[in-house]
């Protein structure tokens, strides 16, 4: 044994000793197995999710004193990097939280997450409790690799009723109405639409809904399936032209490229009445309620599904957004950890407390039949709209940047930003996007 081997060995055993010490001094210490068999769980910090996630873990740990889940929470953007690096280094958690879709697919391809198809076949009671449309983003090559959890967040068209009254106009019924409203609001010095353009995915919501309403959901399905030149559909060019017309027609708040969604400046524009409408994820309701003074309590916040486009092929009941959040089980975890995770999935994550937690936070849980509980919530009106939107949607499409692979998603967001900046024309956009199909 040479000196270097000896050194690394002694350092290694040192570290192992420290780790062991940490394990046994954990809160669950004293049990026969100590902290050794604990399953780890990583997820996002911040409102509204973190307290509900913590409560679920606590419920599980209290109900199952001989096993244990250890949770760690990260900020949204930090998590995206952290989980990738950790999985790459083989240091990931036993339960991997994700948005499903393209990100999940890259974990599947790297052999990091377990196939849960068989487990769901055996546990039909679990599968039956969840919105069927939420399984799409958990499915890769016909196999289910994640459990849909938490809440469904479709994209909602929010509007400020006070501003509509002030200008003396009615909420839009069609896309044509929207086009008519733009000059009406601009004439009064009010921005028709708030938009946090620097965040890029905010702009993307416009493309998703406009494409669905004009050309139908099949166009993006073909892109998703990796069909060559799928973006060359005339419907896409039509949609992109509509977007640039909106930009040129001052549909979006002046300086929207300087506005970010992370600081909620786009939300503030709506509740301060500087903008009349905003297309945003349904979680926006909670932000408006918390920050927007009395806009929610006074009933001044309006909400609806994106209106149909005259002559458009898309089904007006279709919606886009996050059909759920997802938890996968790591292939690197031990059998004991996997058992803990599966028990957590089949008990705590679908119990009544979990449903209640999400409803109280102003979100529609992913669990079927929660409309009964929704009716007694103070936010019943909004939640009912979102519940109906989610459950009645013929197609609940996943956000493009989540559905596509990270490589294609980055190109997509980049080109969307350039499109809104009028830096490229629709044809250039299509060409750039065709270049990353299937990548």
């Amino acid at each position, binding site marked *: 044994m040479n000196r270097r081997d000896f050194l690394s060995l002694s350092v290694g055993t040192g570290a192992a000793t420290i780790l062991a010490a940490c394990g046994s001094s954990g809160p669950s210490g004293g049990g026969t197995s100590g902290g050794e068999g604990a399953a780890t769980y990583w997820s996002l910090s911040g409102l509204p999710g973190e307290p509900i996630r913590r409560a679920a873990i606590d419920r599980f740990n209290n109900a199952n004193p001989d096993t244990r889940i250890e949770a760690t929470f990260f900020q949204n953007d930090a998590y995206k990097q952290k989980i990738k690096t950790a999985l790459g280094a083989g240091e990931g958690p036993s339960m991997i939280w994700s948005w499903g879709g393209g990100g999940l697919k890259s974990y599947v391809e790297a052999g990091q997450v377990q196939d849960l198809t068989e487990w769901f076949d055996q546990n039909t009671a679990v599968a039956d409790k969840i919105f069927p449309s939420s399984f799409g983003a958990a499915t890769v090559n016909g196999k289910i690799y994640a459990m849909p959890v938490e809440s469904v967040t479709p994209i909602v068209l929010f509007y400020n009723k006070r501003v509509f009254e002030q200008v003396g106009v009615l909420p839009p019924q069609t896309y044509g109405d929207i086009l008519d409203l733009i000059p009406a609001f601009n004439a009064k010095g009010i921005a028709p639409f708030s938009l946090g353009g*620097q965040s890029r995915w905010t702009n993307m919501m416009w493309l998703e809904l406009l494409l669905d309403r004009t050309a139908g959901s099949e166009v993006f399905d073909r892109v998703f399936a990796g069909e060559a030149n799928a973006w060359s559909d005339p419907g896409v060019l039509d949609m992109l032209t509509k977007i640039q017309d909106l930009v040129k027609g001052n549909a979006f708040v002046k300086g929207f490229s300087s506005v970010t969604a992370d600081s909620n400046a786009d939300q503030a524009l709506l509740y301060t009445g500087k903008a009349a409408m905003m297309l945003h994820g349904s979680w926006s309701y909670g932000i408006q309620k918390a920050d927007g003074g009395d806009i929610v309590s006074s009933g001044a916040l309006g909400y609806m599904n994106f209106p149909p486009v005259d002559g458009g092929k898309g089904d007006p009941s279709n919606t886009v957004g996050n059909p759920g959040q997802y938890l996968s089980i790591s292939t690197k975890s031990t059998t004991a950890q996997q058992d803990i995770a599966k028990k957590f999935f089949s008990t705590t994550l679908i119990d009544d407390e979990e449903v209640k937690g999400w409803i109280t936070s102003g979100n529609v849980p992913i669990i079927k039949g929660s409309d009964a509980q929704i009716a007694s919530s103070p936010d019943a009106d909004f939640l009912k709209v979102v519940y109906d939107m989610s459950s009645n949607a013929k197609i609940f499409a996943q956000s493009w940047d989540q559905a596509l692979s990270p490589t294609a998603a980055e*190109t997509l967001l*980049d080109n969307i930003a350039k499109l809104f900046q009028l*830096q490229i024309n629709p044809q250039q956009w299509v060409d750039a996007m065709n270049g990353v199909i299937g990548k």
Partner: protein
Amino acid sequence: MTVIAPPAARVQQPTTRSGGRGGSIMWMALPALLVFGAFGVIPLIGVLALSFTTWDGIGTIQPSGLASWGAALGDPALPHALLVTFEIMALSWLVQTPLSILIGVFIAARTRYRSVLAVLYFIPLLLSSTAISITYKALLDPNFGIGTGLGLDILNQDWLGEPRLAMGVLVFVVSWQFIPFHSLIYQGAVRQIPSSLYEASQIDGAGRLRQFFSITLPQLKYTIITSSTLMVVGSLTFFDLIYVLTAGGPGDATRALALEMYQTGFMANLMGPASVIAVILVLVGLLLAQLLRRLSGRGDESQLEGM
């Protein structure tokens, strides 16, 4: 009583001692070398190796020869990012250098109020780039920023949404952050200039302006080169500031090389091409540093000849 020092004592320099000193210096450099090796050279070799592979950051690393190099060099985003990098470099140098010299000269004078000013002025140096960016972003918000706060409509521009304005803001914030640092370097250098030079020029009838251009500036030559090297090479690594302030936008107007590397590697999961960009970044940095060293001329040349 008179004591005459023995003249021989001054020249007694045992030759063995200088050799011993050289050895001890080697030992003193060892910790620094080890740290540099572990955190500088080894990762660099790793990045070079990665640039010949295909890797998504999670799966297995596949050797793929020159595929990543082809992909990275064939992407029009690379020359654009290089251009943006050089633009930021040139503009921030042009803004920072004259201002730093002037401020450095100003605070070099040993007057109390200037010392107080100097201390206050160094506050930006204590702040992190991220804190500065977040603050400026809030101030420059077109709807809720400083323009609305002060009621000055002229300040309500689309600061970070217009490509040229965004670049201007970026250069301004960089300068705001780093001018104090470079002023400090110039302050020290100005204080090193022998006052006899100024006294002599005063006798010859030179005014303040003439003194500045004929004595101060030439005497600062090496300091200018040092400070320029720091600025130029430093501007290659601007990441946090741009990332938080504009995230490379609007569009790709402020997407410098470091940002392009991050987005390729960590957002688009293309570690191979990202490593290629990293290698290019290192090469550009080395080349620039070398170029600036050449510009400084021979190191043994004296600025105080004849004094």
